[in-house]
């Protein structure tokens, strides 16, 4: 037993160190790599992935909110939709792996395809630090979505308004489903939607994404807890490892070269995608 606890601890510690510097959450590395290389069933990996993503976002979200970078008023209407789809995603994910003889293998293939999509998103999306002010449609205007924070680099308070809520809600519905189904935080998808669709500054988008992850993943985690897919034997060393790793990562981030780490993370994602697809195809007997 000790061997697996130690391996899990150091594995998640390493993820905790490199993931934040590379601009992704821990879950997006943990779930595919653990699916590819660890003996656990994907049900337990997704359960642990959700708890890890939840813990990481809970640890950083309060600070972002207090600094004014995230506004709960913006999260509420979005979470109304994404919480429902994240629960649906969890139910579908567990149904798939528990009701089909080769459900694990189909899941593995889907995960690999999703990772290739994430790789492309990371490769192509360039965050806009301060997007141009967009036209606020009547629907979005009713919600009065906006905020302000003091930006030290500009030495002034920056105000912003969010736009395009209808399109964003559709996007976040899909993101919530993926988060619940695959046990991910899905910050890689939240941030571009907040930034590029809703026109929120990149720092605000990243901070608001953290708050949204807490709500989505907490709701989805209840599905996994109720079905017994959250095992303390896997979760305790994983959460401990990623929590310590994230603190080391935050300290080393000052000296690290983020672009190199980002490319390293992307290479790991692509590698994990290929392994997961190969494992899935072999599992359904096509190889």
């Amino acid at each position, binding site marked *: *037993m000790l061997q*697996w606890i130690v391996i899990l601890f150091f594995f998640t510690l390493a993820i905790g160190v490199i993931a934040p510097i590379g601009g992704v959450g821990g879950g997006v590395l943990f779930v595919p790599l653990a699916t590819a290389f660890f*003996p*656990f*069933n994907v*049900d*337990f990996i997704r359960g642990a992935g959700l*708890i890890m993503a*939840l*813990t990481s976002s*809970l640890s950083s*979200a*309060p*600070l972002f*909110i*207090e600094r*004014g970078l*995230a*506004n*709960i*008023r913006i999260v*509420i*209407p979005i*979470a*109304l939709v994404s*919480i*429902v789809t994240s629960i649906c995603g969890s139910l579908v994910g567990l149904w798939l*792996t*528990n009701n089909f003889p080769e459900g*694990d293998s189909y899941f593995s293939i889907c995960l690999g395809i999703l990772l290739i999509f994430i790789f492309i998103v990371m490769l192509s999306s360039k965050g806009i630090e301060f997007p141009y002010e967009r036209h*606020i449609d009547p629907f979005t*205007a*009713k*919600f*009065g979505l*906006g*905020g302000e924070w003091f930006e030290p680099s500009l030495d002034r308070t920056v*105000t912003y*308004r969010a736009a395009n809520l209808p399109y964003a809600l559709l996007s976040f519905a899909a993101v919530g489903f993926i988060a619940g189904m695959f046990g991910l935080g899905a910050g890689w998808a939240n941030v571009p939607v907040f930034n590029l669709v809703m026109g929120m500054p990149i720092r605000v988008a990243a901070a608001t994404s953290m708050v949204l992850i*807490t*709500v989505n993943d*907490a*709701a989805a*985690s*209840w*599905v996994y*807890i*109720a*079905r*017994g*897919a*959250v*095992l*303390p*034997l*896997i*979760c*305790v*060393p994983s*959460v401990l490892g990623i929590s310590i790793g994230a603190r080391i990562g935050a300290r080393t981030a000052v000296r690290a070269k983020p672009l190199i780490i980002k490319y390293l993370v992307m290479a790991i994602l692509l590698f994990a995608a290929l392994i997961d697809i190969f494992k899935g195809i072999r599992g359904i007997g096509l190889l």
Partner: protein
Amino acid sequence: MGGLKKGDAPINITFARTMNVCTWAGLIILFVFGILYLSGINTAYDASLIMRNWDKPVSQFWLSVKGREAQRYAWFLSHLRAMDSLAMSGIVLLSLTPLIALLSIVGRIKGLHLILLLILIVEFLFSVFWPLF
């Protein structure tokens, strides 16, 4: 800036502080009892039996470990003196933290956002309690 709500700061601070306190409490419970559990002290489920079966889908896993599928929360709530179940209570608190933080701002928010907040809380409560029905 017609959409801006200048009075959002107190709401956000209440939400953030509640979230912070609950997160720390959840993490402390998880780590203290989790480490005791990993040390092998008073466990509800045999770790070697878990390891022999953790490659199975969750329904088959619990059939092998407990003799029946895990339904609702009895698989850990019925062993609350065991360290693994106590570690689970830390995870439960972490999973309840956003709900508790949302409840903490109910009295501070008004109008359309209050209605949306209440619907969100109902949705969250549904996610917690649906397995019981």
